[in-house]
Each structure stands twice: as structure tokens, then as C-alpha cells.
């Protein structure tokens, strides 16, 4: 249905770069799970294992000045948008050196300097802000695009529909990236959404939409590129549907009692975006291990950095309420 044509493919070198980023996200997320189980991380944590190609494919297609709003499952988006793992891990440990200086945590990772307007822990809550930011870009005639990430679960909340409607009505430069991992927390798509093709939701607003294999980073990158160009050229917003899989629980520690036996194992065999890209690139074991070592070292260093970080003073809680 999409009139937005995919264009521009990633070079072999770019794909190798994507691979390193996806692997870094994977190792970061695994470390988060491990440190949570060790009792070191407070709060609610949601990892995006299985959804790495979405984050990297979209964020690598962004241009300088583009902005994103993320979701409660934000580590991957934040890493892909350029925040150093040290700053994210420090935030998860509640340290001043964290990307939100200890005020946010996993569900509220911000990095405004790098165009990350924050992870949002209210499902769908970030979309209207992206419409507003895109409206500001339009007002100022700036060639920038606002990108909102959200999941299939969010497509059932009014906020998302109001945002899509207004974005299309005003033709603001925005891209709405729906990561359809087929689960709204513990509720399967069959119990929360009456259609299978979620682009129909965008079609209802007359919005251009694309439906893409979210486990194929090259596909995602090309589609995101096209969607961003479309928005940037003033042709209106785009709904970019990425079909993806959550190869883990809703939250870290989720026993997933609700999930069919063997589903995750099977998906890990068939739908792991890291494995897919590794095969696509034909990486040798040696090449893989080198990239893996690099990722693990970065992640280990981020834990060290975070543990050596500075605790905020309790009374710092009184700061930043008002500008």
C-alpha cells in the first residue's frame, strides 16, 4: 500500500557497523538482566532483546538534528541514538553521571543534546510531543524530523490516534515507528488488537504507511530512510510498521507464564536479528568473536563506570522541579 518507496541500500561496511551496534545492544541488555538478578539495579527494567534491528535501522537513518522519543523499552533506542553505554548504565544505577542524572531511570532515559527527548513510561505518551516538535520544525522551516517509537500495544490508546490524526492533518515532518512485537506486556495480539495489519490504523488517517520485516536491519534502514525523506520533504508523516519479536519477557525477571511453551526458544532460532545479520554478512567465527569481545568490553566498562559513579544527595530530589 505504501507510496513511500524504499531506496538507498546499506553498504557492506555500514552493515558491519550496524552489526556491532546491534551486538552492543544485545550484550548491554543481557548485562542489565544479569545485574538486575544480582540485585544491583533498582526500578522497573524492560529489555529489547530481539528488537535491536528496529533501533539501529531507524536511528542510523536519522540525520543530524532529527529527534526521537522512546518508550519504556528504551535502552536500545538510546544506545542507537548515540548515548554512550556508560551514561545509560550509570542512569540504571541511579548515578549523577547517568544520562538523566539519576532523575529518570530505565524508563526515562533522556539525552537532549543528542536529540533524544526521552523514554516515556506511559504507553503512547510520547507521540503528541513529537507532533509538537515536528510542528515547531515546520514553523521554523528547519529540515528536521521527529520520530516516535511505540509498540503494538500503544495502537489501542487514544493518545496515539489523536497524535496520528493531528500529524496527518497538519502534515508535520514526523515518522511514527510502530515496533510490533505482538505482545502488550503479557497480553498477546489476539487479545488486544482485532486486526493483524496495523498499517490499517494509519490508513484510517490517510497517512502513508510501510510494513517492514523488523528483524532485517537492512530493510529497516532503507524503509526508515525513505520515510524520513518523505517527512523531511514536507510530504507528510509516515507510519513505519516494523514486525518484530520480543525474545524475552515484558520486564526483567518476568517468568512469562503467559507465553506458549517453546515460543521464545523457537523464535530465538528463527527470528534473532543478530543471527540473521551475522549470516547475511557471512561473518567468520573469528570476526564474530572480535566484535563480541569489543561489545562485552564496552558493557563491562559501563558497569564499572556506573558502580564508580556518584550517588545523588537525597536533597537533590528537590532540584529540577521548575526551570
Amino acid at each position, binding site marked *: 500500500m505504501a507510496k513511500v518507496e524504499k531506496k538507498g541500500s546499506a553498504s557492506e561496511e555500514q552493515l558491519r557497523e550496524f552489526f556491532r551496534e546491534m551486538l552492543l545492544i544485545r550484550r548491554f541488555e543481557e548485562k542489565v538482566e544479569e545485574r538486575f538478578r544480582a540485585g544491583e539495579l533498582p526500578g522497573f527494567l524492560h529489555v529489547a532483546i530481539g528488537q535491536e534491528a528496529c533501533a539501529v535501522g531507524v536511528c542510523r537513518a536519522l540525520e543530524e538534528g532529527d529527534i526521537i522519543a522512546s518508550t519504556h523499552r528504551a535502552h536500545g533506542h538510546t544506545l542507537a541514538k548515540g548515548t554512550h553505554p556508560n551514561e545509560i548504565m550509570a542512569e540504571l544505577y541511579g548515578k549523577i553521571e547517568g544520562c*538523566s542524572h539519576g532523575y529518570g531511570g530505565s524508563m526515562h532515559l533522556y539525552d537532549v543534546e543528542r536529540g533524544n527527548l526521552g523514554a516515556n513510561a506511559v504507553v503512547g505518551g510520547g507521540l503528541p510531543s513529537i*507532533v509538537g516538535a515536528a510542528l515547531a520544525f515546520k514553523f521554523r522551516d528547519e529540515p528536521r524530523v521527529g520520530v516516535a517509537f511505540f509498540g503494538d500495544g500503544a495502537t489501542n490508546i487514544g493518545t496515539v490516534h489523536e497524535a496520528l490524526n493531528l500529524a496527518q492533518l497538519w502534515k508535520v515532518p514526523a515518522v511514527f515507528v510502530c515496533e510490533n512485537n505482538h505482545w502488550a506486556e503479557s497480553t498477546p495480539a489476539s487479545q488486544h488488537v482485532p486486526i493483524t495489519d496495523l498499517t490499517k490504523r494509519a490508513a484510517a488517517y490517510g497517512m502513508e504507511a510501510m510494513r517492514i520485516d523488523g528483524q532485517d536491519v537492512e530493510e529497516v534502514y532503507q524503509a526508515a530512510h525513505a520515510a524520513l525523506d518523505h517527512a523531511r520533504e514536507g510530504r507528510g508523516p509516515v507510519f513505519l510498521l516494523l514486525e518484530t519479536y520480543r525474545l524475552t519477557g515484558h520486564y526483567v525477571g518476568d517468568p512469562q507464564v503467559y507465553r506458549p511453551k517453546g515460543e521464545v526458544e523457537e523464535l530465538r532460532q528463527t527470528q534473532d536479528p543478530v543471527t540473521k545479520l551475522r549470516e547475511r554478512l557471512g561473518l567468520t567465527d573469528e570476526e564474530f568473536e572480535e566484535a563480541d569481545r569489543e561489545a562485552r568490553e564496552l558493557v563491562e566498562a559501563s558497569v564499572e563506570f556506573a558502580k564508580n559513579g556518584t550517588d545523588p544527595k537525597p536533597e537533590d530530589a528537590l532540584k529540577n522541579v521548575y526551570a
Partner: protein
Amino acid sequence: MPGTRRGQKGRPLPELSYREAVRDALSQAMRKDEDVFIMGEDIAEMGGSMGVTQGMLDEFGPERVRNTPISEIALVGTGIGAAMQGMRPVVEVMYEDFLTLAAEQLVNQAAKHRYMSGGQLKVPLTVRTQGGAGWSPGAQHAQQLEAWFVHIPGLKVLFPSTASDVRGLLWSAIYDDNPVILFEHRTLYGLKEEVPAELEPIPIGKARVHREGEDVTVVATGRLVHEALSAAAEAEKGGVSVEVVDPRTLQPLDEETIVESVKKTNRCVVAHEAVTRMGFGAEVAAVVQHQAFDWLDAPVERVGAKFTPIPFAPVMEEFVVPHADDVLEAIQQTVGR
């Protein structure tokens, strides 16, 4: 209204209605500053459901005077997003009852982005809204919900009751770097007052003493400021001298002016149109008893609406919300102690 100031060369100062004063502040800000724009339901051709923005479409065009769908979440949320990019949007929510629809964006987003980001963001958004009883619109178009929002750290809440106050405070709201909700009361739109020839910003967090008195302080907001002034005039006939203080800003609250007034009069009445129970007046009473306990000669009296939704039938509506005689009764109650 008090206000006998004269302009230069003794010329009388201009007089504006409350409605015109809102429009004037918006228009002046938009003339001065490309970053200011307004959006809301029916605000363009129609000029707003209360006529506040009439004529502004002609002057500023449809990009900066933006009609929106009936879509409060998107409307407020879009304002938040534009504000975080450094614009200064003024969003009109047609009836304050509909703030409930946008509450998620106001409470979880606007109020918290700065905090959750550890100070990286500012949200210079102004939300104007209006409401109140008096026209019998029934339970979904006549509430006073300001107390909901004063309870949210990160929001500022203004409730100006006169033309000069709304003009100066709206200006300050637009240029404040925080999300500000400005409540207007529907029955005040036609009320006129002399205003400064040049728009003078009124600092947020500064109360206005409308009338000085010796025997009792009435802290009143919105429509009740005017009811309190009527009650004060009536009380004076009976020899009771009433000081009327309008906080104008509910969050932050000018506690000092209120407490100093009570230390002088030793008695306090709090009056608002919203329901008394758990209302803004309860907070004022708490502030007064805590900071002026030794000065109080009587319990703080509260005047507000009865604990019901706002009914339709005019006789019931009038019964439920407070008027000057309710304020007068409360004054007499404190003086009688």
C-alpha cells in the same frame, strides 16, 4: 474595581474587559515574538467559544491561530512538544472540565519532563482554560478544577480575577519557562477594569490586596474575589473591616502576603467556587494555622461549593455554589468568636 491610577499627562488609563485583556496579552506577545502561537478548538474563525480570540485570525493568520480537532490530548501534547523545542505555545482548552482529557499530558508529561531529564528540558507551555457556574451548563461544563493541578509539582497554576491581572499574568505565563495553567472564570469576561497603558507583566507568585481591612482577612480566588468585595462592603456597614486578598497565583502561593494579613486581622476566611472539601482553601487554612497560629482569634472559615456535581436547574446551581452572602456569613462567624 479599585484602581484610580492615571496615565501620563493625567489622561485616564484605558479600560479593558477581562476578555479584551486576555486577547490583548496574547496579541501583544504574538506581535513581539514569532515563537508565540495559539491553538485550540474553534479559536480561529469563530474566535473561541467565549469570544476571547476574535479577530486574531485576521491579524495573525491560520498558522499562528490554529484551529484544532476536538482532541485535547493531542492539543496539549503538541503544545508540550513545540514548547520543548523552544516555542511558546498558548493552548486553549475550551472548558476546564476537558482538562481531565488532557490530564495525562499535563500531569505525566508537561510537569515531569524537566525533572525526569535531570534538568535538560524546559516546557514553556501555557494552557488557558475557563469554567465555572452561573450559566447553567450542567455538571460537565461548570466545574472548578484548579485544585487538581496545584497538587502537581512541576506545574504552575494561575487564576486571575480582573482584567489587569489576567493581562499581566498571562504575559508572565507565556514567558515563564515552565508549564502554566491559567484559569479564567466565565462570568468575569465582561468585567472591566482600568489597565496600565503599557502592558506590565505581573510576577507569578504575588498576591494582590484588593482592599485593606483590620478585622478579618478574606482570601478569595476567581469569581469569589468579587463576591468577597461585595461581602466586605456589606460587612463594613455593620462596622466590620475586611481585608480582601487575591492570591492570583495558586502555585506558587504567596504565603507571605496571606500570613502577614492574617497576623494583622487575626481572622481568616478562604473563599472559592470549587467544592470546599479537599479544596484549595484547605491548603490556605493549613498555611495560616501553621504560620499564624498564635495570631488567630477564630478558626479559619472556608467558603466553597457544596459537595455535589454542579446541577442544571438554575435554582439548584445557585444553591450549590457560594455567593457574597455566604462569604458574609463566614466573616460574621469569625468575628463572632
